């Protein structure tokens, strides 16, 4: 019997594979797949992002079996989930904190790309697809935050949809169209729910394209040099499967700490107050992962030529992400990894500090020094993107690159 079993399984697999090369495909892309041998832990964040997407979709669907998307009943339905549904509090907190975790992971993944030049040729489309995923993620998160119909939900929806009124001529019409009414209300909630449910599946599709693009040329690596032969690579399984699994458990430790011991730390108390269209909260603040864009939006306090300050703020806030599409062409460095870029490797951290400063600005009421810091940080951001990236690439003298990944270069440290 023991002889027949593996034989039978192998025969079934061969029958299926001949018609739909599923197992062959998985074997090639996940098992044997040659991966640079020197990837550091900064390369864990891609698989972590994928896992977060799955977690958010699964918990989201479970919440959807209990949630009511009506302005009268939404807040109450969420409280019912928290109090009466078996383990409802767990699913809700996992989904709620998952949004924050997802963005933390994705931002680290993005900055990894910035540091090691993962956006450079031939990975430009890989990078662009990533920026598209980021935009879709932001849209999804924004709409998801409206669904509990708390004070912050309602007023964040009002503020952000009102941004579109800055568009000349057609702006106010667009806003009414978005709202489905004369203010954020029940129609708005319904359509945000439908779209919040839809967008993640579009994200899945773009993620698949992202992975196809990735597998065309393989992963970048900390040295930024191409892998030239089998001495430079190792099979994905078991090396990176176990490394990803380990990274996952460490990440889950952080995630579960938030879920079980500080589930509301990253959130806003005002969102536990039911939405009141007649009363604005003292401070309208988005979730932390949207703070930098919010800061840029608010930092334009003066009109620019014929563009109102409101419109200019909107344009710059959206541009801060759109500009990322052009990064492969803005950066002129002949060398990928910041390890070999003596000037850029320090300037990179200026960008990190700048983004954190923008986050701080976004979290605070726009008064006094907060405004000044916000304006300086916004200015620096665009200088960094539009001037420093092209200039540094041209002016710096890169360090000599090692001949290959396999020879001489420091190995991936555990």
């Amino acid at each position, binding site marked *: 019997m023991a002889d027949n079993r593996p034989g039978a399984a192998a025969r079934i697999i061969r029958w299926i594979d001949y018609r739909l090369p599923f197992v062959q495909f998985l074997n090639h892309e996940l098992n044997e797949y040659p991966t640079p041998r020197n990837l550091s832990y900064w390369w864990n964040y891609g698989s972590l992002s994928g896992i977060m997407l799955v977690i958010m979709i699964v918990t989201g669907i*479970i919440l959807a*079996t209990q949630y009511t998307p009506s302005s009268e009943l939404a807040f109450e339905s969420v409280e019912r989930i928290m109090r009466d549904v*078996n*383990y*409802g509090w767990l699913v809700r907190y996992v989904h709620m904190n998952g949004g924050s975790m997802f963005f933390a992971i994705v931002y680290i993944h993005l900055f990894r790309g910035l540091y090691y030049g993962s956006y450079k040729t031939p990975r430009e489309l890989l990078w662009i697809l990533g920026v598209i995923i980021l935009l879709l993620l932001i849209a999804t998160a924004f709409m998801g935050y409206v669904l509990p119909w708390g004070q912050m939900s309602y007023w964040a929806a009002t503020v952000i949809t009102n941004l579109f009124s800055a568009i000349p001529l057609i702006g106010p019409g667009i806003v009414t169209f978005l709202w489905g009414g004369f203010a954020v209300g029940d129609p708005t909630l319904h359509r945000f729910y439908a779209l919040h449910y839809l967008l993640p599946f579009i994200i899945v599709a773009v993620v698949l394209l992202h992975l196809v693009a990735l597998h065309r040329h393989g992963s970048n690596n900390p040295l930024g040099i191409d892998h030239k032969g089998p001495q430079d690579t190792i099979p994905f399984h078991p090396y990176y499967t176990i490394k990803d699994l380990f990274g996952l458990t460490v990440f889950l430790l952080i995630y579960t700490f938030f879920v079980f011991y500080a589930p509301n730390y990253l959130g806003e108390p005002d969102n536990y107050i039911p939405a009141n269209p007649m009363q604005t909260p003292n401070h309208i603040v988005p979730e932390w992962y949207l703070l930098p864009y919010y800061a840029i939006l608010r930092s334009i306090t003066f009109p620019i030529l014929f563009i109102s300050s409101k419109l200019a703020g909107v344009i710059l806030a959206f541009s801060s992400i759109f500009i990322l599409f052009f990064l492969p062409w803005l950066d002129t460095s002949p060398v990928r990894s910041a390890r070999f870029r003596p000037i850029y490797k320090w300037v990179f951290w200026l960008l990190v500090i700048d983004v954190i400063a923008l986050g701080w600005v976004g979290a605070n009421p726009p008064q006094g020094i907060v405004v000044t810091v916000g304006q300086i940080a916004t200015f620096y951001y665009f200088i960094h993107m539009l001037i420093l990236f092209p200039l540094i690439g041209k002016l710096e003298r890169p360090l000599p690159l090692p001949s290959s990944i396999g020879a001489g270069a420091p190995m991936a440290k555990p």
Partner: protein
Amino acid sequence: MADVAQQNGSEAHPGETRRDFLLLTAGAIGGVGIVATIWPFVDTLNPARDTLALSTTEVDLAPIQIGQRLTVAWRGQPVFIAHRTPEEIKAAEAVDISQLRDPQKDSDRVRKPEWLIVVGVCTHLGCIPLGQKTGDDRGPFGGWFCPCHGSVYDTSARIRQGPAPLNLWLPGQVEQASQALYKFTGENVVTIG
């Protein structure tokens, strides 16, 4: 994970068995983790605490005169409460149960003979039988009549004619053998569920 060992070492290394054990442990832990995680999420679909709380209802029987019938809602379904007349009780008890499609003694279907409490859903395809309101057609046995496909129930709500296979259920009873889920909890008060 076992095939990894085969892939990477057909030669026996000294550390090989330790690695197998480690991988086996890792696999087991991963498996346990996944299974333990799945249960709470599946459990969210089980009846929630508010649904379970509404699973009991109390009915005041005092206003129901002899010969009258009342319909109450219980767990999302209609429940027929019939205050039976002595004639109805006699008719129910006199039936030869060996002739019934779903043999059941009347005494097995009631706790007090004057109160018949059954779920008002036809056991054929789920319509609500007529007979609760005055003027309703109660069918040839004076019980209930289902207009959808013509099932006829007697004064003990047992199936006598028509396509239904079983007698009307007693509240909470999934099999005929188990206890009905109601109690007389006070002077003229019955608690269902």
